[in-house]
C-alpha cells in the first residue's frame, strides 16, 4: 500500500473516529497530539538544524503565561494572547540564540545554556507574586465561549490541537523543501563546510530558533486553556523540554513525520503504564525508560529511520 493511501486513512480516522471514543481515550489522543505538536516545533531547531535545545520549556511557559495573564488581567482573548505569547517567545528565543550562537556555543554547551535559560524563567516565575508565584494561575471555569478559547467538551480541544499538529507538520514539510531546510541540514552535518558553501549559519540558526520558539509557545497557550491551570514547574520545568524532544528523537529527528509517529508510540505507553501500574509509584516511569532505552539502542535513527530501511 502506498504511503499516501496509508496517510489518507490515518488522517481520516483522526478526523472521524474521536467522537466515538470513550473520554479516557480521547484524553490520551489529545496528549498524543499536543506532544506531537511540541515535538514538531522542537524538531525544526533540534532535528533539522541539529541544535539540541534542552530548554524549550522556556517558550512553552512564555506562551502559557502570556496568554493567561493577558486573559485574566486584561480580558484579552487567549487566541490573541496566543499570538502575543508566540511573538514574545520568538523574541526571547532570538536573544538567547544570538547570545549562544554568536559566541560559538555548539553541541552540549548549547543544550546546557538553553536548559539554564528555562530554569532561570522558572525561578523568576516562582518568585514573582504578580504571576502567581509557585501556586500558579487558575483560569476560572465558565460557560463555553469559543472566542475565549473555552469549549464545552474535550472534543473541541481535540480538534484544535489536531489542527495545530497538522499545521506544524505542513510547516515542517514546506520548510524542509525550501532554501532554509537545505541550509539547516547542511549546518547540522558540518557547520564549517556549510559556511564555506555560502550558508549564513548564524542567520539560519536564528530563523530556525524563531520559528521553533514561536510554535512551541502556541502549544503553551493550548495547554493553559485545556487544563485551565498552570504553574512554574509544569510550564517551565525540564519535563516539558524533554517530552518535546523525546517524541522527535524516538520518531526520527529531522524528518517531517517523526515527531507525530514518536508521539503516537510514546505518549500512550506513558499514559497507559501510569494507569496500569497504579499504586506502585515510579514503576510506570521505569517502563517508559526501558522503552526509550530499547528504541535508542536498536533504532538510532528513530522510527522513521526504521520505516525507510524497510521500504528501501
Amino acid at each position, binding site marked *: 500500500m502506498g504511503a499516501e493511501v496509508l496517510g489518507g486513512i490515518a488522517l481520516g480516522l483522526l478526523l472521524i473516529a474521536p467522537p466515538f471514543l470513550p473520554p479516557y481515550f480521547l484524553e490520551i489522543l489529545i496528549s498524543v497530539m499536543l506532544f506531537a505538536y511540541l515535538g514538531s516545533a522542537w524538531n525544526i531547531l533540534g532535528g533539522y538544524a541539529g541544535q539540541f535545545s534542552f530548554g524549550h520549556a522556556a517558550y512553552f511557559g512564555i506562551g502559557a503565561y502570556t496568554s493567561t495573564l493577558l486573559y485574566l488581567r486584561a480580558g484579552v482573548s487567549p487566541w490573541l494572547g496566543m499570538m502575543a505569547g508566540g511573538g514574545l517567545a520568538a523574541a526571547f528565543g532570538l536573544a538567547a540564540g544570538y547570545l549562544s550562537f554568536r559566541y560559538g556555543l555548539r553541541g552540549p554547551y548549547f543544550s546546557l545554556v538553553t536548559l539554564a535559560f528555562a530554569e532561570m524563567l522558572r525561578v523568576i516565575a516562582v518568585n514573582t507574586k504578580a504571576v502567581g508565584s509557585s501556586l500558579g494561575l487558575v483560569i476560572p471555569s465558565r460557560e463555553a465561549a469559543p472566542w475565549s478559547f473555552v469549549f464545552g467538551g474535550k472534543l473541541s480541544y481535540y480538534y484544535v490541537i489536531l489542527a495545530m499538529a497538522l499545521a506544524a507538520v505542513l510547516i515542517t514539510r514546506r520548510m524542509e*523543501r*525550501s*532554501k532554509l531546510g*537545505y*541550509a539547516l*541540514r*547542511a549546518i547540522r*552535518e*558540518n557547520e*564549517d*563546510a*556549510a*559556511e*564555506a*558553501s*555560502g*550558508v*549564513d*549559519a*548564524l542567520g539560519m540558526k536564528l530563523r530556525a530558533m524563531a520559528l521553533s520558539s514561536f510554535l512551541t509557545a502556541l502549544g503553551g497557550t493550548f495547554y493553559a486553556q485545556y487544563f485551565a491551570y498552570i504553574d512554574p514547574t509544569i510550564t517551565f520545568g525540564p519535563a516539558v523540554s524533554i517530552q518535546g524532544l523525546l517524541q522527535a528523537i524516538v520518531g526520527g529527528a529531522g524528518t517531517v513525520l517523526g515527531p507525530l509517529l514518536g508521539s503516537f508510540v510514546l505518549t500512550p505507553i506513558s499514559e497507559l503504564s501510569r494507569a496500569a501500574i497504579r499504586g506502585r509509584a515510579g514503576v510506570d516511569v521505569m517502563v517508559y525508560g526501558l522503552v526509550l532505552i530499547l528504541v535508542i539502542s536498536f533504532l538510532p535513527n528513530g522510527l522513521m529511520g526504521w520505516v525507510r530501511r524497510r521500504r528501501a
Partner: protein
Amino acid sequence: MLLEMDSVTKRFGGLTAVNRFSLAVGEGEMVGLIGPNGAGKTTVFHLLSGFHPPTEGAIRFKGASIVGAKPHAICRRGLARTFQIVQPFVNLTTLENVMVGAFNRTDDVATARARAVEVLDFVGLGARRDVPARELTLPDRKRLEMARGLATRPELLLLDEVMSGLNPTEIEEIIGLIRRIHAQGVSLLIIEHVMRAIMALSQRIVVLHHGEKIAEGLPENVARDARVIEAYLGEEA
C-alpha cells in the same frame, strides 16, 4: 588583481604560522601554492576564506578588503574553497550537497537543483546524484568538494590538495577537470603535493616554507631554485 594578500601575518599564540606573506592572483590565472608539510599553506586558505582572521596585513578581493568578513560572506563575493580533508554533508545526497552550494546564488529550489545537476554532470558525478554522500568513494568525495565549491559560482576557487590519496589514473582525470574549470573562466589557487600535477597546471608557483615565501615564478624556474630544493630535501642535503 582579483586577489591580493599584502604582508599578511598569522600568529597562534607564540607560533607564527604565516609571516609577512604576500600573494596575488590575477583574473583568469591558475596559481600553485606549494611547500613542505607544515609550511602554512592551509593556514593561508583559512585566512583567505575567513575562517581565521589575520594577525596583521591586508587581504583584498576584487579591490575590497575581506579582512573580518565571515566565510559565507566571502563565498557570496565569489571566493570559494575546498577542504583538504573532505567535508561532505554525509547524510545528504550528492545532489543535495551541491544544492547547498548552489543556494549561494539563488533562493529558488528549482533553480538550485538545475544548477547542481549541471555541475554534477560537469565533474562526472551525474550518475551518483541520489546516493547519500557517505557512500561515495574518496575520489568521488574529492569531486563532490569541487562540485559544491563550483556550484556557488565563484570567480576564484581555492583547491586544497584535491589529488591527495588518489591513484595516477584518478589524478589524470582531476587534472583534466581542473583544466576544464579554468577554461570556464574561473581563476584558481591550488595547493598540491603531487608535483607533476602542479608543475603541469600552474602558470605561476609560490613556495611557502616555515610560513614565509621563499620563491615565486614560472614552474620550471621554481623547480630549479636552490632554496626550494633545500626546503623539500631538508637542510642536510
